[in-house]
């Protein structure tokens, strides 16, 4: 490489990297404090906040609820985004750009405007029926679906863009109908993109908080919502324990992925 990195750049990047990791590392000592308020453990370490997590049904219920909501909104968002992207790819309508833009709107609009909009939707819907409304399970699923569906559309459209149109043309010329083309030709080719879209939708719904604050109060308390309550009123060190658990999960997933990639590279080099 002609242009080597200067030491200044490397040192600068090290500082930025430290800045990015610092708050995640900071929660670890706080989670072992023996006190009831946000503080550093001075001397004695304690597992009391981890014990609270296990023993208080609230935390467990919130986790289960969050997983349920994330599963449903992830599935709904992936299904809607898949049908939409396939339709756009096959039909290539004249206003494709405009239609995709509309579908991506919840992703680019300011989160607080989306939150107010969904609040309006659920309050209005609540006047018409008993199932979908403010602070209802189904309402949260629908709202999360609105917020995560643009990401699913982007991921599925990107993987569709890499499909060779000629294989679809060939299938069509051989007399395959619409369903056959989708099931036997397109879906196998974009399988990975669809799975990634579901995974991302699931994660985004699982940690959604900006909209959730606006549309829930006491009945539907997701895990982020419970954490929010613990952060706002009196900072509860149990949040530190939850955070450490969540950080551990993310770090393990990312390291596993990096390891799998590294092993794949080595195998490819050998052959």
């Amino acid at each position, binding site marked *: 490489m002609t242009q080597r990195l200067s030491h200044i750049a490397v040192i600068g990047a090290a500082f930025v990297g430290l*800045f990015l*990791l610092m708050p995640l590392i900071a929660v670890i000592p706080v989670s072992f404090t023996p006190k009831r308020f946000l503080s550093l453990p001075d001397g004695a370490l304690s597992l009391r906040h981890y014990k609270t997590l296990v023993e208080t049904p609230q935390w467990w219920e919130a986790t289960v609820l969050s997983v349920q909501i994330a599963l449903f909104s992830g599935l709904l968002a992936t299904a809607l985004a898949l*049908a*939409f992207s*396939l339709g756009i790819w096959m039909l290539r309508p004249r206003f494709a750009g405009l239609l995709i833009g509309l579908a991506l709107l919840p992703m680019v609009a300011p989160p607080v405007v989306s939150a107010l909009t969904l609040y309006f939707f659920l309050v209005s819907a609540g006047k018409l029926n008993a199932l979908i409304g403010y602070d209802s399970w189904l309402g949260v699923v629908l709202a999360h679906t*609105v917020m995560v569906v643009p990401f699913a559309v982007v991921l599925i459209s990107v993987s569709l863009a890499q499909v060779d149109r000629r294989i679809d043309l060939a299938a069509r010329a051989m007399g395959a109908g619409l369903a056959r083309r989708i099931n036997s030709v397109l879906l196998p080719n974009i399988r990975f993109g669809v799975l990634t879209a579901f995974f991302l939708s699931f994660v985004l719904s699982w940690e959604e908080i900006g909209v959730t*604050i606006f549309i829930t109060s006491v009945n539907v308390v997701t895990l982020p919502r419970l954490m929010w309550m613990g952060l706002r009123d009196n*900072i509860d060190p149990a949040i530190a324990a939850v955070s450490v658990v969540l950080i551990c999960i993310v770090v393990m997933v990312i390291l596993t992925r990096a390891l799998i990639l590294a092993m794949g590279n080595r195998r490819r080099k050998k052959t």
Partner: protein
Amino acid sequence: MSYALRTSLLIGPLLLFLGVCYFLPFLGIVGWSVTLPEPGLTQYHSALSDPLVHSVVLRTLRICLAVTLVSVVAAYVIALVWVRGTPIQRLLVELCILIPFWISVLTRAFGWLALLSNRGLINEWLQAIGIISAPLTLVRNEFGVIVGMAHFLIPFAVFPLAAAMRNVDERALLAARGMGARRSRVFWQVFVPMTGPGIIGAALIVFVFALGFFVTPAILGGGRSVMLAELIYLRIFQSPNWGLAAAISVLLMTGVGMFLVALLKSIAPRTDR
């Protein structure tokens, strides 16, 4: 059934879903803004003339500009190493970007509280070493909000910057070196200008994201440095004035829309080449 009709059946459900759950309700918000408490444009008038709203708008713009500056500079440095560093450096940098990126905004804001609050790690250490005698106020003010928001937004700035850096033609750098330019000159006068569209794109993304930010400022600002998004929340749930909240939302949406058009225009020339 015709082919066009059947494929439209695929496109339809998502648009119908968003229409019912999102587009129509947004029109409802526009409706609120011109009907509550009475029909007319009074809420827009008070949104634009009310001194409280003014000070919140100014604070929002000030914080967003600071966050944009900090994020883009930090992201540029780290993206540089991510794109052009040694394999080990790249791996480390990638972990530093990806791990925070996947961690919930609440955990990250809480981490900053643990670091910056009066009994937090930084104050305890500084006091233990003896540099300061009383804790510094690092959180529940604009400083804390800027730090927390920049932390959240740096990864979003890294991606467009890294993409722009990967597109830089190595031969241009070689040519500049061949003509006798020193390495710092090659960097500032060739490399940085060539990544210009990426810088503009990253800055616009960060700024637009920052404008509508709610969670981080609410936690790290502690109700003192209220930004636009939190003002909307307060006007809905705490001291209700739904018409004003709706009017601010509509104005915010319009402002962000204009920025997005600018963003698209800043990206568009690249695709012509």
